[in-house]
């Protein structure tokens, strides 16, 4: 089985070993050189947002979580709304490029490159419904697809569309302060029954956690039992 790498376009042939005869092969979509540039989140991480703590300056660590999360949790408005986040990879230069190809250039099939990992991690998490973070109608039309939903579908998981998003400015153009004090952009769909459900939110990148916390807030408000999240990248 030979393929072309979804990122660099090089052809490569996966090495044949005994295990390739006896196990069901997970198809790989990135060549080994590109695959090696992905940096899995590992080691000591913040127990809430899964930010790697080892590379973090000591002044930003508060026990077993980061000061960012501590600040959120100290605020009675936000405390306890959201269980935990799990992220697959560090948002390094390579992942930045690959995600930009995926969502801004609209190369949908990049989602396949992560399908195996996402399916594997999702299996270990405790949830009833997987909810992709939605795009506004305008943005969804512009891109042609929702990148978070694409990650789920390609991993063979079933997205549950519980949320709507009102059209706003692009998140990436805002500072942390602006993002946190953002007006609520999400609302729960009237027809979505989430009462008593454990929700797993899915997004492409975790940057400040503001998006996920705002989504968690409306979900809990609509009766969800708990909310946690899974993201491809940890910024």
């Amino acid at each position, binding site marked *: 089985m030979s393929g072309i790498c979804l990122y660099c376009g090089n052809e490569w042939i996966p090495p044949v070993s005994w295990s390739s005869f006896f196990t069901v092969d997970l198809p790989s979509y990135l060549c080994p050189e590109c695959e090696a540039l992905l940096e899995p989140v590992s080691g000591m991480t913040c127990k809430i947002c899964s930010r790697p703590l080892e590379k973090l300056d000591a002044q930003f660590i508060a026990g077993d979580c980061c000061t960012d999360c501590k600040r959120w949790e100290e605020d009675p408005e936000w405390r306890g709304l959201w269980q935990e986040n799990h992220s697959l990879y560090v948002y390094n230069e390579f992942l930045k490029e690959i995600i930009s*190809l995926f969502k801004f250039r609209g190369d949908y099939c990049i989602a396949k490159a992560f399908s195996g990992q996402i399916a594997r991690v999702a299996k270990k998490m405790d949830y009833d419904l997987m909810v992709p973070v939605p795009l506004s109608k305008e943005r969804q039309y512009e891109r*042609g697809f929702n990148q978070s939903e694409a990650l789920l579908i390609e991993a063979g998981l079933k997205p549950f569309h519980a949320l709507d998003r009102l059209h706003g400015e692009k998140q990436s153009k805002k500072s942390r302060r602006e993002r946190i004090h953002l007006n609520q952009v999400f609302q729960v769909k009237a027809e979505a029954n989430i009462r008593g459900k454990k929700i797993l939110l899915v997004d492409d990148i975790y940057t400040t956690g503001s998006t996920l916390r705002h989504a968690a807030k409306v979900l809990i408000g609509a009766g969800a039992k708990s909310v946690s999240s899974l993201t491809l990248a940890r910024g």
Partner: protein
Amino acid sequence: MKFAVIEEKLIPEPFLTVKQTTFPISSLDHFYEQLPFNPQFTPNPALKNYLTGKQLLLDELPFSMEELYTHYENGFLIFRKGIVFEKKSAKCRRCGNTDQRYFASFYCSRCREVCTYCRKCLMMGRVSTCTPLLSWAAEPPLSQMETLSDNECHPASLIWEGTLSPGQETASSRVAEAIGNNQDLLVWAVCGAGKTEVLFAGIERALKENKRLCIATPRTDVVLELTPRLRKVFPGITTASLYGGSEERHTYAPLTISTTHQLLRFYKAFDTIILDEVDAFPYSVDETLQYAVRNARKDSSAMIYLTATPDRKWQRECRTGKRAFVTIPARYHRHPLPVPRFVWCGNWQKLLRKNQLPANVLQWLKERLASDKQALLFVPKIALFEKILLILRSLHPDIETVYAEDPERKEKVQKMRDKKIPLLVTTTILERGVTFPNLDVAVLGAEDHIFTESALVQIAGRVGRSAQYPKGDIIFFHYGRTEAMVRARKQIVSMNREAEEEGLIDVD
């Protein structure tokens, strides 16, 4: 965007007045890409400028769908399918890709169906089964010349004081003739012949006949180098300079200088395309770029190919009279091309593993350093750099290496120009486009397959380019001579002979 077809006319979904099933454009058959021309309609001149000779996506056009559609209804605008299916396999009409591995599908929010898109040209915006390509149908915009009163000096006039060598002169009139008659012509000019000047007369003629021209080259640095030169000699006209990230993407100009890649946005635009370095990477191996060039030509148009090193197929076509061509066998400074010497250097790779260079190679390098003459040493692989540099740095501390992805490539080439580097060890990346005035060149391991006939001719072409220093040493150190080496030398020798017969060089 989805469309319905009523009486073979496309109707975009938002403009339907009655309920009608709509489809992505690629699924529709039997519709007019272009409707009958309505002479009473006044088109928007801004849109005309934007779209003439182009093929753009809706996302690339800052005009409303209403306005675009009105132009279609009046016959001024063409809607084409972005993706077509031939025997169930997809083809991208923008870049010509038919390799099915470069197509992917997804459930698309725009057409609410499974949509197939082309990954080959994705960086220029996604073309999918629901994406139309838009082009202008009517006459091209009035060029500056037509709006001119009689007594003004013609703006397309060439302002150039230089003179052509007899070899250039011959080629120049052949180029002008081919452009005038919409023919194809190969200009086979030796390295350092002065190709650009040969184009001037033909460009002037085309401009005065209100033809639209494009000079296309595979490399951005050549676009950047040519633009100011042509603006200087044709000051009366607009010259657009196109490369990835350039600002002039939407300028309508009688003369366009572009990377071959940017031609993907053009459709039947040019009366003449002058294609520089046809044999150079990536154009020579990339079918997408070759498609882009074909697609950018008008049905009746001229094509001028420029190269110093046509491949064997082209050389054969020239010999057998199947391809119109003209040679410039001599350099403008009337000195013959330096002919490479072949010198056997034994199993140099084995020596290198022992941190040694062959004695004759080392000797040659030492002589250059001692006489203070700059030199290039071409080697087949980057992997060899480290060992070679280790040996050479003991001879001189300023010796450097350079390769394609070298982050300091530009700086090092500049340092070489400033004579701050006595010897530069390089991969084939410096085989073309660079001129250092007083130079000797050696190839280590000339038998490697990376050194093709054309690579070796180009490498030899680095020597003796300036009129002040028309001579220099070119030496191929090898461990067994190859066909490519022999052919390269033969090509150079026969160009010199031709030049001598035609009296284009002074033999001393």
